[in-house]
C-alpha cells in the first residue's frame, strides 16, 4: 500500500533496537524513538515507513504496528517479499528509519467493545500483524471480550506468533485460535483445518455467524473472497471491517 500525506509533518525518527525471527522469511523489528516517547496509537493502526537514505529509492510503505500500546518499543512484523521489505530485513541494529504518525481505523472501537457481539478476526499470512497488536492489548488489559481468530497460512512454517497465540489461548478462555493451512496437510493437533477458509468453516466453529463483528486482514484476494462470502451469508456491511495488503 502506498499512501502518504502531502505534508511531511509529524514524522519521527526511530532507531532499530532488536530483530526477532518469527517464521520463514518473517522478522519482527523493534524500534525506539530517537527523541522522547513513542506516539500513542490504537492497536490495529498502521504507520508509513521510509528510509533516511536512498536504499529503497525513497519509497514509502505502510506497515501495521504489531506491538501493543503497553510495550516500551514500536514493532512492525515484516515478510520479505520485495525491495522495500528486503531493505528492512537488512537494516542493522542502531540504524534509523522515518516513521509517519499512525493511521487507519482497523480496530474495534469502544462502542464495538461494549456491544455484546463477539469479535471474529480473519487473518491471512502476514495479515496477522495488526491482530497481534489488538489481541495482545486485550490480553494485557485482562479483557474478557470473546475473540475467535481464524488464521490461514500456506504451510506450518509460515505461521507467525504460533507459540505466543497458543499461550494466550491457553491462559484465556475468551480467546480461541483456529489455524488453517492451504498448501500442506498437517497432522499437528494444533492445526484444525487443512483447506481454504470459507463461510462453512466459520459456521463450524462459530455456530451462529450473525451478531458478530468481523475483521479481515491479509492479501487482497483473501480479503476480497472472505468479504464476499460474509456478504453472501447475509452479514451486513456495518459488521465487517477490512484491511488488505497490496
Amino acid at each position, binding site marked *: *500500500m*502506498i*499512501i*502518504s*500525506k*502531502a505534508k511531511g509533518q509529524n514524522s519521527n525518527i526511530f532507531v532499530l533496537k532488536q530483530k526477532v525471527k518469527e517464521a520463514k522469511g518473517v522478522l519482527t523489528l523493534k524500534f525506539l524513538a530517537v527523541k522522547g516517547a513513542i506516539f500513542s496509537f490504537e492497536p490495529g493502526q498502521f504507520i508509513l515507513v521510509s528510509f533516511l537514505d536512498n536504499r529503497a529509492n*525513497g*519509497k*514509502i510503505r505502510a506497515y501495521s504496528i504489531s506491538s501493543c500500546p503497553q510495550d516500551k518499543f514500536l514493532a512492525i512484523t515484516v515478510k520479505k517479499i520485495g525491495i522495500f521489505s528486503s531493505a528492512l530485513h537488512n537494516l542493522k541494529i542502531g540504524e534509523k528509519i522515518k516513521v509517519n504518525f499512525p493511521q487507519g*481505523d482497523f480496530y474495534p472501537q469502544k462502542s464495538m467493545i461494549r456491544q455484546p457481539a463477539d469479535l471474529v478476526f480473519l487473518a491471512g499470512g502476514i495479515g496477522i500483524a495488526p491482530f497481534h497488536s489488538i489481541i495482545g492489548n486485550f490480553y494485557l488489559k485482562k479483557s474478557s471480550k470473546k475473540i475467535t481468530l481464524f488464521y490461514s497460512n500456506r504451510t506450518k512454517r509460515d505461521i507467525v506468533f504460533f507459540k505466543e497465540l497458543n499461550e494466550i489461548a491457553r491462559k484465556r478462555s475468551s480467546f480461541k485460535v483456529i489455524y488453517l493451512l492451504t498448501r500442506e496437510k498437517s497432522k499437528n493437533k494444533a492445526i484444525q483445518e487443512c483447506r481454504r477458509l470459507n463461510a462453512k468453516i466459520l459456521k463450524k466453529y462459530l455456530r451462529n455467524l450473525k451478531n458478530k463483528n468481523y475483521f479481515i486482514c491479509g492479501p*487482497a*484476494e483473501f*480479503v*476480497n473472497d472472505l*468479504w*464476499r462470502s460474509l456478504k453472501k451469508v447475509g452479514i451486513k*456491511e*456495518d459488521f*465487517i*471491517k*477490512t484491511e*488488505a495488503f*497490496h
Partner: protein
Amino acid sequence: MKKKKNKKIGDVIGGNKGKSWLYTGTVKNHFFHPRNVLLDERNYQYDGKGIAGNPLCGDMMALWIKVDPKTQKIKDCKWRTYGCASAIAATSMMSVMVTEKGGMSVKKALNLKAQQIIERLGGLPELKFHCSVLGLSALKEAINDYLKSKGAE
C-alpha cells in the same frame, strides 16, 4: 494486408510481467466519462477536503465533500486525480455511491470498503486493487476534516 484473426487481447498489457487484462464495461464507462470531477476548486464551497497519494510516484488524489448538517449525509462529492485508469474509474464510482439515493451518511462512508466499489464496477484486476484505495483514503481524510471542523465550531 492480411487481416489478423480476432484474438481477444487485453485492454492493458501490464508492466514487466506482461500480464494482460480486460476492464469491464462499467470501468471503461467511468474512466472515459468520469463523474463528479472538479478541475478548479477555487469557487467550490466544501465542508471537508482530503488529499491522498504518493507524491513520489505521482499518484495524487484530491477530494471535496459537502455534508448536510441536519442529516449528516454527503450531499456532494467532487474529486481530481493524477492517477491511473482504475483509480479514475473507482473514484468516479465511489463519488456516485456516496451521493446517490439522497447521500450516504458520514458514518457509513467511513466504513466504505474497496470491495464494495470493485463490486459495483463489476470487478477490477487483482493487480489494480490498490488503485481503488486511493479515492477511499482521500474520502476518509475529507470526512475527518469535516468532523474536525465541526468539532471546532
